[in-house]
């Protein structure tokens, strides 16, 4: 087993990897940009190495600095997390050259699946069903022509993309033209590759993905599906396992196809095959994510398998600790991505300081986060603050736990997506499991509440505190201000007692 793992990431996923390593008795080395010196992953790791300024391309995206930090730390393995360089085969190759084990699939598998067009070809050969679409490397004019043939609505996707980046949905030829330019620009920027392709947008389809695990000894298994249809602009907001519409037979079929897909690219380590699933139980390959997914915890909660530990074991040449027969899901798990976005305002990214934090607890409640009091949330990185996962014996129980945990979760100092999640867990369609990827329109913004009571309560509290402040800011003598300010504490307001009535 490894002695020390360098974690080439930040935020909650870096914390997640620190935890797995720590539990396995492996030392951890974190890396941090200038914006992250005080971040949780830096403090939870055994060691920490500065790798550059806040801008990701000057730090977390610098392969040279990551390799140098790994060398300085004496790490014998590197975990890429998700995002950043996790699906860049160059990092996997640089690790290999430096004699450091990359905790992920072979560079060849990353490259094969990373080029979405190559991936489509490989999958077609392996007999994996595909969504109708084009190849890449076509000009805008060629794409426009093919687009008309396939029919609208269409997705414009980046050949090198993934995770919704550089992705656009278009409804007609005029829109297509504009979208191609924007998608190419975004793809060039995000991946250094402006090739795009088209894919038919299937109406009413769900996004359902299969988790696979493979070791270097020829064992490839799947851990069942995740339902990820609650998205806004192709960004997942809520995921669950299992899916409300996948039965045992469909799960077996999808799992078989996913395992076949992984084998087709010589896959080793954890990976995810994303499918579109239509109302007739037909499913179509979308793409393979050759890394840990943000939403891996829901699979962990129902299967009991620690996926990060499996990744590490597999990378160290060990066998998977579970066989396909050992995978017996229990209960239901749902994850909410708690982000620094304002759901009342079109999910605008927010920044600010976390001045108070209260995390939820109790049975079946898991928080994977990088959150702490005093944290400065900046706009440099992904807005994900934490993942709240609730497990229950049944979907209803899981939702009940989620509802309670969302009430307990308090992040004070900036807007977060929590109100959206609180809203979602009351929506009849969500409660019934009746939704597809169009559940949230692209421009979805949370409607303001209609209850009068919270307004009244806020008015009462603001008035009491304002009143108190006004009393306080009438200094009795000009000089005793300073000290009082530092020791003053808001007093209790109790304008009518109840206990007194009882005590008599």
């Amino acid at each position, binding site marked *: 087993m490894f002695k020390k793992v360098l974690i080439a990431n930040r935020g909650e996923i870096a914390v997640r990897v620190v935890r797995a390593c720590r539990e396995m008795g492996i030392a951890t080395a974190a890396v941090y940009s200038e914006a992250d010196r005080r971040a949780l992953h830096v403090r939870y790791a055994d060691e920490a190495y500065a790798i550059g300024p806040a801008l990701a391309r000057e730090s977390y995206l610098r392969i040279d600095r990551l390799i140098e930090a790994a060398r300085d730390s004496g790490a014998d393995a590197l975990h890429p997390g998700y995002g950043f360089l996790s699906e860049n085969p160059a990092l996997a190759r640089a690790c290999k050259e430096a004699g450091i084990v990359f905790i992920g699939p072979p560079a060849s598998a990353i490259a094969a699946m990373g080029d979405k067009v190559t991936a489509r070809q490989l999958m077609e050969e392996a007999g994996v069903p595909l969504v109708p679409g084009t190849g890449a490397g076509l000009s805008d004019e060629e794409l426009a022509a093919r687009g008309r043939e396939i029919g609208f609505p269409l997705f414009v996707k980046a050949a090198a993309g993934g995770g919704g980046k550089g992705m656009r949905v278009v409804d007609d030829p005029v829109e297509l033209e504009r979208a191609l330019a*924007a998608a190419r620009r975004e793809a060039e920027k995000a991946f250094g590759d402006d090739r795009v392709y088209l894919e038919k947008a299937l109406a009413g389809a769900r996004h359902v993905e299969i988790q696979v695990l493979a070791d270097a000894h020829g064992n490839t298994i799947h851990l069942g599906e995740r339902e990820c249809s609650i998205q806004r602009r192709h960004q997942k907001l809520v995921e669950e396992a299992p899916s409300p519409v996948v039965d045992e037979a469909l799960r077996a079929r999808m799992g078989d196809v996913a395992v076949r897909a992984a084998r087709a690219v010589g896959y080793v380590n954890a990976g995810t095959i994303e499918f579109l699933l239509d109302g007739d139980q037909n499913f179509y390959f979308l793409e393979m994510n050759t890394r840990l997914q943000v939403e891996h915890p829901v699979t962990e909660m129902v299967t009991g398998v620690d996926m990060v530990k499996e990744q590490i074991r597999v990378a160290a040449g060990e066998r998977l600790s579970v066989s396909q027969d050992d995978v017996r899901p229990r209960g239901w798990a749902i994850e909410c991505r708690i982000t620094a976005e304002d759901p009342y305002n079109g999910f605008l990214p927010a920044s600010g300081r976390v001045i108070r934090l209260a995390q939820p607890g109790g049975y079946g409640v898991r928080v994977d986060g990088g959150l702490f009091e005093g944290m400065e949330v900046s706009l440099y990185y992904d807005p994900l603050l934490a993942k709240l996962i609730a497990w229950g014996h049944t979907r209803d129980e899981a939702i009940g736990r989620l509802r309670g945990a969302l009430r307990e979760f308090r992040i*004070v100092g900036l807007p977060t997506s929590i109100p959206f999640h609180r809203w979602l867990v009351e929506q009849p369609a969500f409660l019934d499991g009746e939704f597809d990827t169009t559940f949230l329109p692209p421009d979805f913004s949370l409607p303001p509440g209609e209850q009068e009571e919270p307004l009244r309560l*806020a*008015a009462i509290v603001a*008035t009491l505190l*304002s009143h108190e402040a006004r009393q306080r800011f009438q200094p009795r003598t000009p000089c005793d201000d300073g000290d009082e300010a530092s020791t003053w504490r808001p007093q209790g307001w*109790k304008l009518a007692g109840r206990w007194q009535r009882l005590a008599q």
Partner: protein
Amino acid sequence: MKYVATVEGREYEIELTDAGVLVDGVLHDVDLQAIDGGFHYSLLVGPCSHELFVERCEDVCLVGLRGRRYHVKVEDERERRSGVRSPAVRDAAGRAEVVSPMPGMVVAVLVEEGQQVITGQGLVIVEAMKMENEIRTPVNGVVESVAVAAGQGVAQNDLLVRVGPG
């Protein structure tokens, strides 16, 4: 003491008396306790228990309750009569001032001064959180001025483009 608290356009007349808090004349049995010295409060109204956060409480109090954040303006009678605290309302008078709805970086400016634009047309692309956002004009008109250039950082509510009547 009598106050008027305004929250999301709704006004409450609130009077603090020895018997309790009168809200629009209705008596509320209120017990407000600070939990940790200034941000976090427990409120009992009658037996009903509420948790609240108060991020700041100056001219306007920012109160967090049930996951939402409410801006509450509190004025006493004198302030209200004199209108001292009423905030200035920005008035664009015929013009649309298109501001950045988020902090980010300007990736591209799609229009130039003097150009005719129609409602919904893209003006500027602002990248934030690794996503591109096309900022569009809410009105038909002519671009009067462009306040930003590609590569420039912008704060939330920074002016991007001023669109005048066509």
